[in-house]
């Protein structure tokens, strides 16, 4: 290519031959031919939209894709559990207790003869309910409060900050535990307790985001044009927040999964005989030391589920390129 440009440096270096003269006559003829756009040259570089680009990045992440597949599987299992298994989850069969995996019971049976595979299938339900409802309701409460606090400031913001501080003073699982105990343990109360502690996260995010956006010039411009505050919030602030909120929702799910498992393990979750993977761990008492299949399957499912949802959340974070510190 311009390897011959070496020759052009000779003006600085007396040891090399002089540079070529301007193009000779034969080239001059070619040079004078009028300009024409070369074949197949595309002047515009195409840029994919933000969401398309994000999806592509997400797809490349193996853990995230595993998470997506596994999570979808769990959702399907939870929904179609009755169809997938012939047993009821509370069907007691004292003739077949504590059996290891067999053809009739692929995951074995527990101390009351209930089929473990069935209980695993049904156990997905409380977990998903807690995970998704916590996320959705937490957002529904946290986002409006956060945006309002960030935008309006003043006393309202001060109040909200106090509330956020209060709920952050203790690790969330302690507050949830206490709430569940006070309200008496049940799945509904667990979800309620999770939502009460969960709205804080999205609230904090939205408040911070609103603060930083509020200072931007285009907001001032919009207000100067006479656009009312609520319109500014809905059409200018919220769309910016969409990636952050999506990630916030996704990263709340593994926490909720862990919460449901842990609290059910402590006996604070669903009431028996409804199955929950966490509860299955504690229900196995000391039996599992001899019949480990009783805890292998619930433990594996808990771990894989947390891994899957965490993978999705991490994948989203990288794909959407969000950072918590705005």
């Amino acid at each position: 290519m311009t390897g011959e440009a070496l020759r052009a440096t000779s003006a600085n270096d007396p040891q090399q031959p002089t540079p070529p003269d301007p193009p000779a006559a034969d080239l001059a003829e070619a040079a004078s031919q009028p300009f024409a756009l070369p074949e197949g040259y595309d002047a515009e570089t195409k840029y994919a939209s933000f969401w398309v680009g994000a999806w592509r990045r997400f797809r490349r992440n193996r853990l995230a894709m595993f998470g997506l597949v596994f999570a979808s599987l769990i959702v399907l299992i939870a929904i179609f559990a009755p169809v997938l298994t012939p047993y009821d989850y509370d069907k007691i069969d004292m003739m077949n207790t504590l059996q290891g995996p067999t053809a009739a019971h692929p995951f074995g049976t527990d101390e009351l003869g209930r089929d473990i595979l069935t209980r695993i299938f049904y156990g997905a339900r409380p977990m998903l309910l807690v995970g998704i409802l916590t996320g959705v309701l937490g957002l529904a409460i946290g986002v409006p409060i956060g945006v309002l606090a960030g935008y309006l400031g003043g006393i309202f913001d001060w109040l909200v900050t106090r509330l956020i501080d209060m709920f952050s003073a203790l690790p969330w699982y302690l507050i949830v535990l206490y709430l569940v105990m006070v309200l008496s343990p049940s799945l509904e109360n667990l979800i309620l307790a999770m939502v009460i502690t969960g709205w804080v996260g999205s609230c904090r995010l939205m408040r911070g985001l609103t603060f930083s956006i509020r200072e931007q010039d285009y907001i001032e411009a919009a207000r100067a044009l006479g656009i009312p505050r609520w319109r500014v919030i809905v059409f200018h602030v919220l769309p910016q927040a969409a990636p952050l909120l999506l990630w916030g929702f996704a990263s709340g799910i593994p926490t909720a999964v862990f919460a449901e498992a842990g609290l059910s393990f402590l006996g604070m979750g669903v009431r028996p005989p409804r199955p929950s993977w966490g509860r299955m761990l504690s229900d196995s008492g000391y039996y599992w030391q001899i019949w480990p299949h009783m805890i292998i399957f619930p433990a594996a499912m808990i771990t894989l589920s947390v891994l899957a949802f965490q993978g999705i959340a991490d994948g989203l974070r990288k794909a959407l390129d969000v950072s918590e510190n705005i």
Partner: protein
Amino acid sequence: MIAYTLKRLGGIAMTLLLLSIFTFTLSRVVPGGPWMKGAEIPLSDAQVAAFKAKYGLDQPVWRQYLTWLGNALTLDFGYTFTEPERTVTELIRSALPFSALVGGLAALLAISLGIVLGVIAAANQDTWIDNIVTSYAVFMSTIPSFVLGFVLVYFFSVKLRWFPAGSWGDPNDWRDVAHHIALPVIAFGVPATGGVARWTRQCVAEAMASDYVRTAYSKGLRASGVMSRHVLRNALIPMITNFLPLFPGMMTGSLFIEQVFGLPGLGRYFVVSSTNRDYPLVLGITIFWALLIALTYLVTDILYGIIDPRVRITEQRR
């Protein structure tokens, strides 16, 4: 610095106040009490009334709260419902060392192992070493500690019989205690190494990619000098501020592990007292933990102000 500390302490006091009001009110407002929960012999109405009178539960809620608050400020949290002879403070004091030891050791394990792994990963970014460490970190941080507890007990207690499956051992023989708490500490600490390793890797990698590191190389420094004098010193600042809260975090978060291994720690008392609706004890533990966590954050912030000259020197200027 003094003004800042005072301001923070004020904030902490207010938060604790709000928290105590919240938990207290909730406990009094929701119907039910320890006499109902799993009581073998249902108490008669007269007995319930006597119980209420003894603990002042028949007073209006706000008056009860103020009484409680007044006592709390002198560190008197009253007597527990379930063990009427013992005060809350006494119980906390007796159970605290167990949680503190297990939690503290677990945090130490998490931080030391995590930092080592994180530095290795950052120093070998985007190589197979980095991938392995990161995969390990991700996996470890998703395993719940009690699940890991079960796994460890199964392999090392049941199968191999190397470690006992639970309980504390003889408190007077530190070797026996160590033998007993080895598994809980590992089960509790190892999942946390994941998070520590990832954060370490991020901090170190960020420092390595910074402009001043490029300048350091351009001056003629070698990799070892750059790493020690420029990278690590800068990365340490965000790392410390994140890792210090692990100590109180793990000391207060040990309840799952205590449940699995049957350890007589504060977490276990919290669960049990919640189950029994033993409100004085629950309140006492709650406030104690909240105070511990808040103070640690304060110490961390002050430490940050001392370590980072950007904060320290601007402060002095004022």
